[in-house]
C-alpha cells in the first residue's frame, strides 16, 4: 500500500481554466487528476444538447483536457477521474477513444445515475420524488422535466479503478466522491470506516472548486496573495489514516494557508454537523487545520457517521422565461434618472397589460449586491447601471418587455447610454428540483470500454 496518495484538482466547474489539468500533471508528482465539471444547472444544459444530437450531452472540454494530459497517463501512470460524462458518459468515452494516441487508455464508464427514462415507473411504484424544499410531489411538474439524475458515490468509481482503468468517467457523481474514491481504492478503506471516508469527502470538498482554496476568490489578505496569474491548483496529499495535506506545486502562484482553506470549507455549507453524501455523513465541526510549512495545510481529526439509505436526485425542469435589460445613466442626478426610468418602464409594462411573476430592479454601482444594506451617497455617483429583469410563464410577455428598453433612450430620462449590447435576450428558465430516492432502486454499472 502507498503511504501517500496525491490527488490533484484540475477543474472546478465546466468552464474553468483550460491550462490547469496539464499544469497539474506536469508541475510535480501526482497520482490522480480529478476533474469536476458538473453543477446543478449543467446537467440540464447537457440534456438539451443531447436532445439536439444524441452523440452529445457531456462536457466537451474534457476531450481537450485528456489530450493535454495523455503523456502523463500513458507514460507516467497518472489516473484521471472526472464526472465529465454528464447525461451521456458512453458518448464521452467514445469521444476520448477517438483521440490519437488513446490506445494506452483503459476507460471505465459509470452509468445508472440517469433516472429520466425511469421516472414514470418510479412514480408508479410510490416514489413521489417530492421537492425537498417545498414537499410538492414531482407529478405536479412531471411533463416539464428535462433531466433527472441521482447523485452517486464512490463505489462505482472504486470498481472502475479495481478493473484497472486509468480514466474513469461518470455522470452525476458527487463532486467529493471523485477525490474520495481513489483514496478508498488505494488505502483499502472499508465501507464502514466512517471517519476515513468522511476525511476523503472533506479532502474532496476542499479541492473540488479548483483554485478557490489556493488563493482564488480569497478575501483574507487578498491584495498580498502572490502571482495570481499563475495560480497553482490544489493537491490533496493523503495518508492511509485519513489525514491529509492540502498543497500545490512549487513555483506556482496563489497561497494555501489556514484562512484560504477555511474559506473554502465554509463555502456552500449547510448544517456543518451533517454533510450528507451517498457514502458517509461527514462532520465539519470535527475538522482540525494546521499550517505545515509554506503553502501546506494539514487537515486531521475528521469524524464521520453512517450514510443514510437515500440518494439525492437532481431534477431539472422548464419553468417559464426571463429577460434582463440594462441602461446606464450619468451624473448629474444619475441615481434619480435611473429610478425615474424604472418607474416609467414599469408603468408602460402595466399599460400594455403584460403579466410577470417577478419584476426586479437593481442599480448596479449603488445597491445591486448589498441592496438596502449599502449606504447611498447619490451626489457622488458618476454613473449607474439600471438593470431590470422580468420572469413569467408567458414567453410573449417576456418578449414584449425586451422591446421596451431601447425606446427609453429617446423617450425617457436624459443622460442615458450603454445600449450597445442590443435588445435583451429571452431565456427559457430551467429550474432545479431537489428530491430524495431510496438507494436500493438505483443500480450503477461500470464498463471498461
Amino acid at each position, binding site marked *: 500500500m502507498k503511504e501517500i496518495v496525491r490527488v490533484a484538482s484540475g477543474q472546478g466547474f465546466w468552464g474553468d481554466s483550460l491550462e490547469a489539468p496539464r499544469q497539474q500533471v506536469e508541475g510535480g508528482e501526482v497520482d490522480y487528476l480529478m476533474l469536476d465539471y458538473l453543477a446543478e444547472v449543467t446537467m440540464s444544459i447537457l440534456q438539451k444538447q443531447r436532445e439536439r444530437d444524441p452523440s452529445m450531452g457531456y462536457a466537451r472540454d474534457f476531450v481537450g483536457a485528456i489530450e493535454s494530459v495523455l503523456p502523463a497517463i500513458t507514460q507516467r501512470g497518472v489516473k484521471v477521474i472526472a464526472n465529465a460524462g454528464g447525461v451521456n458518459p458512453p458518448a464521452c468515452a467514445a469521444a476520448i477513444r477517438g483521440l490519437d494516441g488513446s490506445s494506452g487508455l483503459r476507460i471505465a464508464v459509470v452509468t445508472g445515475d440517469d433516472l429520466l427514462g425511469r421516472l414514470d415507473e418510479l412514480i408508479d411504484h410510490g416514489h413521489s420524488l417530492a421537492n425537498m424544499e417545498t414537499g410538492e410531489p414531482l407529478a405536479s411538474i412531471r411533463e416539464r422535466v428535462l433531466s433527472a439524475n441521482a447523485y452517486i458515490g464512490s463505489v462505482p468509481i472504486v470498481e472502475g479503478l479495481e478493473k484497472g482503468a486509468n480514466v474513469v468517467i461518470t455522470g452525476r457523481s458527487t463532486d467529493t466522491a471523485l477525490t474520495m474514491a481513489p483514496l478508498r481504492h488505494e488505502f483499502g478503506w472499508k465501507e464502514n470506516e466512517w471517519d476515513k471516508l468522511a476525511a476523503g469527502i472533506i479532502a474532496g470538498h476542499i479541492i473540488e472548486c479548483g483554485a478557490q482554496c489556493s488563493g482564488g476568490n480569497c478575501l483574507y489578505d487578498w491584495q498580498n496573495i502572490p502571482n495570481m496569474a499563475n495560480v497553482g491548483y490544489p493537491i490533496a496529499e493523503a495518508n492511509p489514516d485519513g489525514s491529509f495535506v492540502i498543497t500545490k506545486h512549487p513555483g506556482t502562484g496563489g497561497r494555501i494557508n489556514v484562512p484560504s482553506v477555511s474559506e473554502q470549507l*465554509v463555502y456552500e455549507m449547510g448544517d456543518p454537523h451533517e454533510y450528507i453524501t451517498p457514502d458517509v455523513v461527514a462532520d465539519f465541526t470535527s475538522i482540525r487545520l494546521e499550517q505545515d510549512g509554506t503553502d501546506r495545510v494539514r487537515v486531521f481529526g475528521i469524524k464521520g457517521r453512517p450514510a443514510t439509505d437515500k440518494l439525492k436526485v437532481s431534477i431539472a425542469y422548464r419553468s417559464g422565461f426571463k429577460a434582463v435589460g440594462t441602461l446606464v445613466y450619468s451624473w448629474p442626478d444619475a441615481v434619480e434618472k435611473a429610478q425615474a426610468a424604472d418607474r416609467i418602464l414599469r408603468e408602460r409594462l402595466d399599460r400594455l397589460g403584460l403579466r410577470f411573476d417577478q419584476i426586479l430592479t437593481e442599480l448596479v454601482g449603488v445597491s445591486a449586491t448589498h441592496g438596502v444594506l449599502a449606504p447611498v451617497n447619490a451626489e457622488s455617483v458618476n454613473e449607474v447601471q439600471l438593470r431590470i429583469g422580468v420572469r413569467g410563464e408567458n414567453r410573449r410577455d417576456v418578449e414584449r418587455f425586451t422591446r421596451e428598453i431601447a425606446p427609453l433612450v429617446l423617450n425617457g430620462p436624459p443622460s442615458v447610454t450603454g445600449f450597445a449590447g442590443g435588445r435583451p435576450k429571452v431565456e427559457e428558465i430551467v429550474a432545479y428540483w431537489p428530491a430524495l430516492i431510496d438507494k436500493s432502486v438505483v443500480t450503477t454499472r461500470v464498463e471498461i470500454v
Partner: protein
Amino acid sequence: MKIRLVDVAHARSGDKGDTANVGLIALKPEWYPVLEKYVTRDAVAKHFEGAIDGPVTRYELPNLNALNFLLHGALDGGGTLSLKTDAQGKVFSTALLRMSIDVPDAEAEAAGLPRVK
C-alpha cells in the same frame, strides 16, 4: 465599543436553492469567542432586514473559528430562477461584513479587538 465585522473577520458565501450561506471566520482565533457571543442569529436577522425574505439559522464551528449563517429566502428563488445580479449569493459574505457589533470596552480591549478607524 463599536466593532465592525470587516475589521475582525473574513467570510465566504454560497448558495443552496433560495438560501444563501455565509461563513464568517475570525481573523484571529482569540477573536472567535467575541463573534460567537455578539454575532447572534437575531442580530444577523436584523442586519439583513429588508434584504431577505426568510429566517436566519446559525451554526457554530469553533474548530474553524467560524460561524455559518443560512439566510433563507435571500436569492429571489435562487439558481436559474433568480433575476438578481448575485443570483448565487456570492457576495452576501461582504454584506455581512458591513455589520457592526457593540462590545463592552473592557471585553474588547482584553481580546485586543481593533477600534473603528
